Each structure stands twice: as structure tokens, then as C-alpha cells.
């Protein structure tokens, strides 16, 4: 159905678990698979009942050894007969439930992966996706579908109606200034629309070639660009399909116009706005947040920071504010003694940068501010010659004719 774009009208799909691996045992196998399938309105027929009274099932789950590999999902819909093929989960390798990292593959995760195939998803080349071809450890206790898989399944089945954007056109209001305390007003930015209204006429989605971002960060090899209540995701200087998206669609509870963000060593995302900060595990806010910045470190600036930088090579985090910067120790949850220090250490970098991240191999630090970026040599402790350069041209791939022109009618497809 996914392939041919047909719509599945019936609200139920019946399935049956035909056998189990002794290693995991019948009850745990059923529990793991039911949990994986439970989120769908699928009806399970007990296998013996199906066989005895000829009850037709659409999906037959069984354990099958195929080339000695773990999982092979094949579903074939045959309304006039039994399911011709099997969606099977092969337990050749070590399998079990709630396994600690690197001690085997959790059957629940394997079931979710194979269910993804059954629902039409192919393998993903995003290593953090559960649809990556290789199984990796994920916390099963409060399992949340990773971002890439969420987008994949929504691409096939659509976005839940609650998240749909309003179909009636948004009002076009003149933009006017809001009395906001965020850091961007200090730099006499163009007037901002009221917080609850889009900045631009038409469907309200900003064009990345307009620039004026709140901050830029690197999460798992991809650039995330934040502006007002939107964010873009770029890879290799190319905006990913479907972006910009609304920030609070993904990070529910996160306010618009964030000041800074970075990815912590434990893979959680930290967001800053004003005197508060949030910690998200993937798309879920950690309990107890937002918290005040003072709780993060007593010497950190009380009214907020301009940007945060995670410097993996030395395992340190840096915070920048105005003409000062702090070095933060993640383990001790405090800033290192002797900080803050003057910005002058970062020779050539302007005060109040709005974004900073390390190059992949760690030799350079890129700083962003306004429409420009600086490339800082971490060895020479100085900005490379020829900088600043245009962030819109080099990072977003906007050509000169687009920069600053969009928003006056001709949208192009940059959105």
C-alpha cells in the first residue's frame, strides 16, 4: 500500500506471533512484540486459533534463520489468501530484553525496526535512526522514536492532524516592534513581529536567505539554524526537505527566539533563552526544566548568554556573553576558576557572537554573528585571513541575488 500510495481503509490489521526463541522465552517475546506493535490499532489473533479455524491474518510473525542474519521483514498483502510471506525476526545472534549496551540486541528494538519495514520504511543512513541497518543500543525503558524515523513515517503517513498547520491563510499584519529583552534587540535588529504572529506575509515560513538568525549550532554532524519560532536543518550546505519546521513541534515547550544551544557530551541538547535553560533528550524535555542559569553555574551571567560552544577535543564547554567568556566543567557543574576571561583571547572574534561550533576534525572553531562568520584557528588562536565571510552564501548556499531579496514577492524554493 505504501508503495502504490493506496489508502488502507480498514481501521484494523490482524497479526499473529507464530513462534519464539527459547533464549528470550515465549512471554517476553510476546511482550516485546506487542509493545512494539501496540501503538498501532493492530489486532492480534492467537496463532493456534488462526490455524485451527482458518482465520485469515494479514501478518504472520515467525522466527526464521536467513543467511544467519538478524532480521528480515517481508510483508505481502494477499486479501484472497493467507499472507504469503512472513515478517520475521531472527534470533540467531544474542537477543534479549532490556539489555545493557553492547551485550546483544534488544528484541523490542528489533521488532520496532522490522515493524518500520512492514510500514514501508527503508533503511536510513542516519546512524541515530532505529531504521539504520545495524542494530545499536537505545534506551528501551522510555523509548522515543528518533527524529529521523519520525520524519520518515510522517512522510509516508502524514503529520498527525494536531500538528497540521492551519489551512486558512494566516493574517498579514504590518510588522511592529515588541518590547523584548532578548539579546537581538540590543543589536538594533529590524523590528520584530509580535511573538504570536509570523514575520512574513503568505504562509509565514521564513526564507533562510533572509538571514538574521537567533543562533546556529551543530548537532550530530548537521547544522541547525534557529530563527524566531522556526528552525532549519542543513547537511552539506543544503537545507533538508521539509524545513523550516516549527521549533515547538519538535522540542515541545521550547520558546521561540532562543539565544544559544549546544549538544552535551551525553547527547542531550541544551537550549538557552534569557535567564533560563532547557535540557532535551532527543525531542523530550527533561523533567524539572527550564531552570535558571544560576543553577547551572553561580558565576554564569544571570541575564543569559550569547552562545555556547562544546569543544570535544578538550572535553570542555564554553559560554560567551558580550566581551567575556566562561569555561564550564560538565562533570562538576561549575565554571572553572579564573573565569570569566576577556573575549580578546579569541583574537579577531567580535563580542557577543551568536553561534559557535567546532569543525569536524577539531582544528577550527566557527563563530557566527549577524550575516557573517569567522574561522578561528585553534592552534594559532587567531582568525584566519579573509574573514569574516558571508554565512548566507557559504553555509546556506544562497547566491548573492537571493540574499536580502526574498520576502519581496519572489520566494523561490529556498524555504
Amino acid at each position: 500500500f505504501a508503495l502504490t500510495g493506496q489508502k488502507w481503509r480498514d481501521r484494523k490489521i490482524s497479526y499473529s506471533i507464530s513462534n519464539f526463541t527459547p533464549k528470550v522465552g515465549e512471554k517476553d517475546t510476546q511482550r516485546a512484540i506487542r509493545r512494539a506493535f501496540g501503538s498501532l490499532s493492530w489486532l492480534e489473533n492467537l496463532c493456534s486459533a488462526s490455524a485451527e479455524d482458518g482465520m485469515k491474518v494479514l501478518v504472520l510473525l515467525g522466527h526464521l534463520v536467513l543467511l544467519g542474519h538478524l532480521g528480515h521483514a517481508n510483508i505481502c498483502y494477499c486479501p484472497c489468501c493467507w499472507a504469503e510471506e512472513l515478517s520475521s525476526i531472527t534470533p540467531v545472534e544474542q537477543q534479549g530484553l532490556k539489555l545493557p549496551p553492547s551485550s546483544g540486541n534488544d528484541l523490542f528494538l528489533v521488532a520496532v525496526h522490522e515493524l518500520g519495514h512492514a510500514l514501508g520504511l527503508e533503511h536510513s543512513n542516519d546512524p541515530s535512526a532505529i531504521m539504520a541497518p545495524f542494530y545499536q543500543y537505545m534506551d528501551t525503558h522510555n523509548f522515543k522514536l528518533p527524529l529521523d524515523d519520525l520524519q520518515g513515517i510522517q512522510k509516508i503517513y502524514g503529520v498527525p492532524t494536531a500538528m497540521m498547520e492551519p489551512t486558512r491563510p494566516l493574517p498579514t499584519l504590518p510588522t511592529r516592534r515588541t518590547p523584548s529583552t532578548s539579546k537581538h534587540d540590543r543589536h538594533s535588529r529590524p523590528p520584530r513581529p509580535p511573538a504570536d504572529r509570523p514575520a512574513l506575509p503568505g504562509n509565514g515560513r521564513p526564507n533562510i536567505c533572509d538571514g538574521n538568525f537567533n543562533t546556529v549550532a551543530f548537532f550530530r554532524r548537521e547544522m541547525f539554524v534557529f530563527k524566531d519560532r522556526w528552525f532549519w536543518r542543513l547537511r552539506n550546505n543544503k537545507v533538508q526537505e521539509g524545513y523550516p519546521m516549527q521549533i515547538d513541534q519538535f522540542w515541545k515547550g521550547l520558546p521561540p527566539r532562543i539565544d544559544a544551544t549546544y549538544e552535551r557530551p551525553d547527547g542531550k541538547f541544551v537550549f538557552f533563552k534569557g535567564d533560563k535553560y532547557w535540557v532535551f533528550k532527543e525531542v523530550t524535555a527533561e523533567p524539572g526544566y527550564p531552570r535558571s542559569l544560576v543553577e547551572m553555574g553561580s558565576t554564569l551571567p544571570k541575564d543569559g548568554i550569547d552562545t555556547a560552544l562544546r569543544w570535544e577535543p578538550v572535553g570542555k564547554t564554553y559560554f560567551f556573553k558580550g566581551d567575556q567568556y566562561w569555561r564550564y566543567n560538565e562533570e562538576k557543574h561549575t565554571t572553572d576558576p579564573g573565569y570569566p576571561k576577556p573575549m580578546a583571547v579569541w583574537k579577531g572574534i567580535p563580542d557577543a557572537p551568536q553561534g559557535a561550533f567546532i569543525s569536524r576534525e577539531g582544528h577550527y572553531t566557527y563563530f557566527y554573528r549577524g550575516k557573517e562568520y569567522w574561522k578561528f584557528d585553534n592552534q594559532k588562536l587567531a582568525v584566519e585571513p579573509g574573514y569574516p565571510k558571508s554565512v548566507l552564501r557559504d553555509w546556506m548556499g544562497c547566491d548573492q541575488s537571493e540574499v536580502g531579496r526574498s520576502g519581496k514577492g519572489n520566494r523561490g524554493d529556498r524555504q
Partner: protein
Amino acid sequence: VVSVCAEDRTLMVETWLKTYGYLLPHAIRTSDLWQETVLQAAVASMQRFYGIPVTGRLDQTTVEWMRKPRCGVPDHPHASRHQRKRR
């Protein structure tokens, strides 16, 4: 390299590449010289899809990843991202 015997299980690289969609069966029935190029391209394609350094060679990292347990469904390394979502 057709198989690596350093460890207790032999890894049949060509079979692995074919099984998981990186080597089309007919691609290998050509001359030896061309065969090596095709195999290198297949290894490079797998490295790119896995997100590991793309060397085109069977280095240790690549062999380790080939040995890891994985799903039996083939990958589609050459499909565009959009197609990747549909099956």
C-alpha cells in the same frame, strides 16, 4: 579480498555486499581488473551509507561494521533520500 579469516567466522565480503544491496549480481561477471573497481565502489558505497570513513578499501573499521549484527533487509544506497522513505 573475498574472505577474512582472522577471526573464527569467515566474512564473505562479496556475499555481504550482494546481500545488502551494494553489489548487483551481474556487476561481478566482468574482467578481473574491472571486478576490483566494482568491488571498491561497492565497499565505498557501503562506507558512505554507514557513515564511516570512505576509503573504498576493506580496512579494519569497515570489516568490523560488516561483522556487526544487522537487519536482513537490503539497503538502498543509491536511492535518493525521498525514495528511501518509501518501500
